[in-house]
């Protein structure tokens, strides 16, 4: 399998997907914590006209140019969302919806407009819609790696300030930190993380790459730093696995495959992770309920014994069922544990150990 990675294209795409996964995973951790998950969705959709305008203005399709255009548009989108929320009674979710759909629609207008032009080299721009990982070139990879690296570097540099921003911005202000500026910085880092991934998974699906790795990581740890690290790993894992799968399988587009990989990681995490995992929760619940049932039957037997000290025939399951409901399976379990003894077909009594337990 390892010689898969000798394939130049596959290597490039896998590395690109990994870079995307790492950056969006790490920065997505902050976004999700600050309830800005869907802001990521809005930013990615808003980036589309930026790509088109960058091309229209410069005539170039160099990744840096297009990414810069995407970033500016995405950032403008965020400003508009905040502006709408601050100056009108329109709420955050509606502002996101407006910016998301209007910018995107405008982007489509520009794309189709470019398409009709005589130099019709719009092909290459619409890969930003759904992503076209297979089309990643070395220069794309370099751009992604450098920008992603810078974004991660800045994040690490002001880590404690970002933690403060996410947890208690008021307190941060009292300490003298410029929280507003930090907010802008963090949002900008998120924008960068998003735009470098657009070529790979596309505008529509990029939101998932910001949200899912972080949501999955949160299930495994209660520490912010570890969470960001895990999210980065999950993102990279989904990126690489998704890329390999889609290369090996026919007609499996890369973007959606990566998203399904990361979704699978989320599902596994939700079910199985640590103490919060749903599976463990269910098992714990069942164990607790069973314990309660056994204890109930045991105490009922004890009570019956006290009330009818002369009955040496034991008590029937039916009577016990009346007292605490469905006693048969519990009685069998108690028998297995040596707490009760079966005297006849349907007669049960406590053993010495059982009596001791019931007394406590």
């Amino acid at each position, binding site marked *: 399998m390892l010689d898969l990675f000798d394939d130049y294209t596959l290597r490039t795409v896998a590395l690109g997907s990994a870079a995307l996964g790492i950056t969006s995973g790490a920065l997505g951790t902050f976004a999700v914590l600050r309830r800005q998950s869907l802001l990521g969705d809005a930013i990615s959709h808003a980036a589309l006209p930026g790509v088109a305008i960058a091309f229209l203005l410069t005539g170039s399709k160099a990744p840096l140019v297009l990414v810069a255009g995407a970033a500016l548009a995405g950032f403008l989108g965020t400003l508009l969302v905040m502006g709408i929320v601050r100056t*009108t*009674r329109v709420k955050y979710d509606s502002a996101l919806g*407006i910016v998301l*759909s209007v910018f995107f*629609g405008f982007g*489509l207008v520009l794309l189709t407009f470019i398409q009709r032009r005589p130099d019709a080299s719009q092909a290459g721009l619409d890969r930003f819609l759904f992503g076209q990982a297979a089309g990643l070139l070395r220069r794309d990879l370099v751009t992604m790696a450098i920008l992603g690296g810078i974004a991660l570097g800045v994040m690490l540099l002001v880590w404690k300030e970002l933690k403060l921003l996410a947890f208690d911005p008021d307190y941060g202000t009292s300490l003298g930190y410029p929280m507003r500026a930090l907010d802008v910085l963090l949002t900008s880092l998120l924008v960068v993380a998003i735009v470098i991934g657009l070529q790979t998974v596309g505008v529509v699906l990029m*939101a998932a790459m910001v949200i899912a790795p972080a949501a999955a990581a949160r299930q495994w740890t209660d520490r912010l730093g570890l969470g960001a690290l895990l999210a980065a790993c999950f993102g990279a894992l989904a990126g690489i696995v998704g890329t390999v799968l889609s290369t090996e399988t026919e*007609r499996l587009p890369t973007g959606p495959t990566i998203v399904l990989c990361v*979704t699978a990681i989320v599902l596994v995490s*939700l079910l199985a992770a640590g103490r919060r995992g749903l599976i463990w929760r269910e098992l714990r619940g069942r164990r607790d309920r069973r314990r309660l049932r056994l204890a109930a039957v045991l105490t009922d037997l004890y009570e019956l014994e006290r009330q009818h000290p002369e009955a040496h025939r034991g008590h029937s399951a039916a009577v016990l069922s009346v007292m605490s409901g469905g006693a048969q399976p519990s009685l069998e379990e108690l028998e297995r544990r040596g707490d009760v003894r079966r005297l006849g077909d349907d007669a049960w009594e406590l053993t010495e150990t059982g009596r001791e337990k019931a007394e406590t």
Partner: protein
Amino acid sequence: MTSGQIEIQLIAVVVAVACALPGTFLVLRRLSLVSDAISHSILLGIVLGFFVVGSVNSPLLLVGAALVGLATVVFVQLLQRTGLVKEDAAIGLVFPALFSIGVILISRYADGVHLDIDAVLLGELAFAPFDRIEFWGWDWGPTALVVMSVILAINIGAIAIFWKELKLSTFDPALAVALGFTPALVQYALMGLVSLTAVGAFDAVGSILVVALMIAPPAAAYLLTDSLPRLLLLAAAIGAASALAGYWLAYALDASIAGAMASMTGVAFLLAWLFAPGRGLLAAARRRARQKLEFAQTMLAIHLANHEGLPEAEEESRIDHLDRHLRWPPEFAQRIVRLAHRRGLVEADAGRLTLTQAGRELAADALAR
């Protein structure tokens, strides 16, 4: 205008109005992004429906896809209820996954069938007049028009019938529960409408426009009125106008019709944002300018009243100290003093200000509020 063009515009208007109605309630209930989620995941519904039914043109397809839309909402709520994922993150986890499944299914199994990814996002309104419904030997018109008109009728009907419940559960869910209405039921009914509308509009205009039409016109209308019936009407009107304007823009630029319509809803919102009487940015700026002067005079009166009769009154009532105590630049201080004097609120005497009775009353009123 050709009849084809007329039909396209008719479809556009019907779609816009059909979207604006449930969209208004989405905006009011802070569920706008559910429209984004549903409009993406119904792709999966359409694909699955296609596998089951075998053709793209069946009404069963509509219903099936709408059910997937509802399922999206159910999944999101399930996720939220685990308590392990925040509300907004839940939405962003469900719809990309469903959408991805849909895209993959199309790529692998639906090749060669008229299910084009681009059409998913954009719809292809330009081709709508060519796909017609012929029934009982009669041309009923473009499929899209017929379907959307039926959906519009359903939307209007549902809103009319459940008016009380919708209104109450939107503005006071606690009271709705207390009165015995089931807000959850209303919620699901609303989601069903949204789903149905999104699926119906899908073919013609694609998913992005559905979001734009469901959110932007109602949001714009929200800045223009306080009454729910008028809100619905305005939303519908703004939506229709945006749709028409968008069509002509696309015609002029030879560009995507759906994209142009979405852009025009944005323009409509922008106009409302700037120019809404009372709530728009322009109105607010004008109001602030006016209030600043009035407010400053009231502040002056209160400042003087607070220190009246106290030992520091001498100090505090000096005109040239106003800039220190009230942090006013000298020219501004002079202006306010002049205005206050003209209104009969203060008397100036040897560089010191005294409150008149009117000024004292103004101060008392302001503080009593």
